[in-house]
């Protein structure tokens, strides 16, 4: 990659001369990393002064060298933007490794850290410089909801990753993979999804099931809206038909109000609803359970009211979500008093949002990570640990070992994904016939929803230089001469064991190593190490 930032300041110069991204499962870390090489330093540099100027961002003592200062700056920027790095390392003078967290933030953080640090070395920072850097970085990130879910996926060891355009985030591997679009699960029925796009359809659906709702109707002109308001007794609220983006309900009572509110909706139709008895409480329902509730008082930040809401109110929210058939929903209820039993509170459903943003809940509750994890669990829909067996094979004997293992697995009825020099196939269908070793093949196998086991040949040189393309494997097989450090890397990525065939270099003693005499033996050993289907 080319130099991405260049700045000179005073007597010290910090310049990013190169950045390189490594795929997941690389020699620095299981996560993807961005490696930054810096040209820096002059004898009379004053990192302490720069550190002081970045004090709002950086804590602790001033690092002694520009590389550490750079790493600290990048990490602090990422954390301030809401998406901490998984780590930083100085591997050589002027060579900094930034480990991606749940997203590809490290690359963007590196660029901004370079600019910011150069400015701090040059002299006092104009007011707002740091805030602007943080805001700019935040803009490159996925939504807070997606970040929270990706972090929860990382914590569960599901190697979460953004899928190709339009196919959401991916968690887990092969047949055990689940895809999500924000908080919409892969298994959310399309029919429900369509219904949930209209407040009118949702209200009709709930009312038909006998679930208490705020009365509402659809108006297609200001005059019709006025008539609807009159039918509701002269007072009403007007809001958008689609519940996806904000749009606060506007109270109306006069014809002028109605016309203004209808116009403000800015669409051909608007919802006219009876005025709620008070501000709504927003319940988050995940996997059939109401897991959090917020008081949404106007003009104030939402307040966690999970414990204050009566069990009947939680039950009403759960059922509203169930009737709309959503994995995850935000259900707005209104009531005289949400803390009273159903018979007394008069609680009714004002709104159901399928696939809601989690931000207000994450900001208000005491344990946002636990909440995000519960939501993710609902979206994963019983996908369990989300893993399929993965075996990576390196060395001259790799094709023979991979073929033998794939054959054994197929004999057990597995739908094997194979990737190697000769191409890539899943469940017997050849999908590519070019070189698909390592990172060119493995990401496709783990993303393929039919693969229930994967065996991938690895090109040692490419693995060393660019990474494997996935953060973990179960078993590494080394059959033939492979450089010691590459063998160590494979051993570090293997969760279960390393099978060492003839010619394999010695392995660190901590590794569970299994010796094999030939390709057939290596395949059998890998098969046994993975275990039965």
């Amino acid at each position, binding site marked *: 990659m080319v130099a991405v930032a260049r700045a000179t300041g005073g007597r010290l110069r910090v310049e990013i001369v190169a950045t390189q991204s490594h795929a997941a499962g690389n020699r620095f870390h299981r996560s993807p990393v961005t490696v930054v090489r810096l040209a820096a330093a002059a004898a009379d540099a004053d990192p302490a002064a720069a550190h002081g100027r970045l004090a709002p961002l950086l804590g602790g003592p001033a690092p002694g060298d520009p590389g550490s200062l750079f790493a600290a700056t990048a990490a602090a920027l990422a954390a301030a933007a809401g998406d901490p790095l998984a780590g930083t390392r100085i591997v050589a003078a002027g060579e900094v490794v930034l480990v991606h967290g749940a997203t590809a933030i490290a690359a963007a953080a590196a660029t901004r850290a370079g600019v910011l640090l150069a400015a701090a070395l040059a002299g006092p920072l104009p007011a707002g410089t740091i805030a602007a850097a943080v805001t700019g970085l935040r803009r490159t990130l996925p939504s807070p909801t997606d970040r929270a879910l990706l972090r929860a996926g990382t914590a569960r060891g599901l190697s979460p990753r953004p899928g190709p355009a*339009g196919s959401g985030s991916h968690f887990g591997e092969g047949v055990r993979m689940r895809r999500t679009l924000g908080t919409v699960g892969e298994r*959310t029925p399309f*029919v429900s999804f369509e219904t949930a796009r209209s407040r009118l359809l949702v209200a009709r*659906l709930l009312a038909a099931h*006998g679930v208490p709702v705020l009365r509402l109707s659809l108006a297609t002109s200001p005059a019709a809206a006025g008539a609807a308001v009159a039918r509701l007794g002269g007072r009403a609220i007007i809001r958008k038909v689609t519940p996806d983006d904000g749009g606060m309900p506007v109270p109306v009572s006069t014809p002028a109000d109605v016309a203004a509110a209808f116009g403000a909706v800015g669409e051909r139709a608007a919802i006219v609803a009876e005025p709620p008895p008070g501000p709504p409480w927003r319940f988050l329902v995940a996997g059939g359970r109401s897991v959090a509730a917020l008081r949404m008082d106007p003009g104030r930040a939402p307040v966690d009211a999970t414990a204050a809401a009566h069990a009947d109110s939680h039950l009403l929210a759960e059922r509203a979500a169930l009737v709309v058939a959503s994995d995850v929903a935000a259900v707005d209820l209104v009531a005289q008093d949400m803390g009273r039993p159903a018979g007394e509170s008069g609680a009714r459903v004002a709104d159901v949002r399928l696939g809601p943003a989690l931000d207000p809940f994450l900001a208000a509750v005491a344990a946002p990570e636990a909440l995000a994890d519960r939501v993710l669990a609902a979206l994963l829909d019983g996908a369990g640990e989300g893993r399929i067996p993965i075996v990576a094979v390196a060395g001259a004997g790799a094709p023979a070992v991979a073929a033998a293992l794939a054959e054994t697995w197929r004999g057990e009825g597995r739908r094997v994904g194979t990737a190697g020099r000769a191409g890539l196939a899943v469940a017997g269908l050849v999908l*590519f016939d070019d070189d698909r070793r390592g990172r060119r093949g493995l990401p496709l196998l783990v993303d*393929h929803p039919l693969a229930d086991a994967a065996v991938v040949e690895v090109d040692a040189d490419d693995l060393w230089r660019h990474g494997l393309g996935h953060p973990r494997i179960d078993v590494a097989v080394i059959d033939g001469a492979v450089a010691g450090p590459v063998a160590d890397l494979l051993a570090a990525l293997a969760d279960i064991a390393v099978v060492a065939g003839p010619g394999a270099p010695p392995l660190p003693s901590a590794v569970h190593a299994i010796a094999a005499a030939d390709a057939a033996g290596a395949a059998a050993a890998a098969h046994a190490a993975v275990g039965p289907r």
Partner: protein
Amino acid sequence: MNGAAPVRILADGRLAAGNRLGGIAGLWARVAWSDATAIDEGALGRWLAEVDPNVASELALTPAPGPADAVAAFARVAAALMASGRSLAIVIDRETTPAGRSALVIVEEGRAVAPERVMAAAADLLAAAVAGLPAAGFRDRVADCGAPPIKAFLRYAYTLIPARLAARGAAARPALGQRGSLVGEGVGARLFLFTMGRGTGALGAAIAARKDACAALLSRFGLPVPRQLPVADADAAEAAAGAIGYPVVVKPADRSGGAGVAAGLAHAAEVRQAFARAAAVSRRIVVEEMLRGEDHRLTVIGGRMVAAALRVPPEVVGDGRRSVRALIDAVNADPQRGGSRSMLLPLVCDGETDRLLAAAGLTFASVPPAGMRVRLHSAANLTMGARPVDVTASVHPDNRAAAVHAAAIMGLDLAGIDFISPDIGRSWREIGGGICEVNREPGLLVHQVAEGGPDMAEACARHILAPAPLVPIVAVLGGGDADAAAQAIAAAMAESGLAVGLAAGRHLVAAGLRLSDPGPGDPLRVTRLVAHPAVEAVVAAVPPAAVVARGFGHGRADVALVAEPGAPDLAAATRIMAAIGAEVVDGSSPLDADLVRRIAARRPPS
């Protein structure tokens, strides 16, 4: 239309499922009738045909219930108005009392715009036909109440899966408050909309709606898809076609059913015209490589390719005698094309037909030589008059696998894959071809019509039904005594761990949630409990008279417990309950613990 009217409606209304017709919903009318007017069947049919040919065609297919008099004609017209490709059940009960004579007519409720207006419309249509009034004045009446205004052949397609479900003993019923149908009960209730059910995920369906995103996703996984370029205007379309290489396809990225699609475009002028036509229906237009070969539909259900059909594009074959126009007319004269229960549509000619004819050096008046195939459209959609041929058995495993992989990658449990191949019996890896579209809501007719094709409606019904268990349903017949008995049974079932839905007295509670209550005796109470997705068992106290007058509210029950032996209409109500499968049990003695255990044992698998 008084006085001489053949039938006069005294009262009418709707009946919930679980009535004298059985487990299905119906409309009823009590009518007085006149014997003065003889009903001329032929004349009635001809007059109705002028109002609406589909209604007339349904009338002809609806069998006469008993003696063919004015009452029977009235019932058949009412049924024909709602039929949508399936003969509806009819019950007629004539009775004479000292007050006079009347007939109770019950007609199964079909698909109707406004069921509550059907009976009145049927009476008025019958009177108008007998009086010979101008038919044109009655078209609005049919449109106001009758079958929904979609193509008759689609309406027919919609009846296929419900018919298969019913044959498997699982009648589908309209979903509560939303489009689609429900099958199964309580926690086992499943919603489906034509072929879309729970397995049609939001994510896959969203991708399938965008042909451009779909192609990009499939190609990432190495599946064969045509090269595709998005274009903003006619110039860009021409440039893209040049880059891809002729011939090309121009199509909207976000429309279905062949709308705006033009294939086989051979030069720039055709591309520009095609762009204009596509731009009329969408703003997202793509130019696509033209895969060479025949158009096939491969349908995948639950991870298996279950059917494949070759779609022969709309065409006529010359005989050396007749003109193109005459050949088209001859094909369209086939009664299979068009009509209320047809599976094929007539050949349609439009601008593309003109273009294809011109390219072949023909006009509608030309007489093509014997054996010459004259294409009328390049796309092979049924809606354009295409004709399918079953090829399920001959699909090469690689092509079958490609269809299965595509459905899985899209996240669709049920998908129709449009697969182009010069020979579906040979692998795409060997001779090319590929996937040009993935449909999230595939039509059934393409396989249903293809001779020798598998019964796709049956396959879909099995798929929809697979995990749709029934829940125990107990009706307690009687007044106040029934309420107490129902509460006791519900309490005992809840004790055994079931989430109970209870309708008794002033309670309408579904697994702990109090529902809005339409009131005792309203069949909607039972309907709501059975549709409630958290309910594992239903116990409902119902007055027998209400069952007779308004229906039970669901088409099935396990037990009908008689809690009040002397209740009015008890005999008729128990007959209805028995007919929908309920075991009728004497419940006047104290609660039988064994009975509760037996009922609770019907609990659905969780």
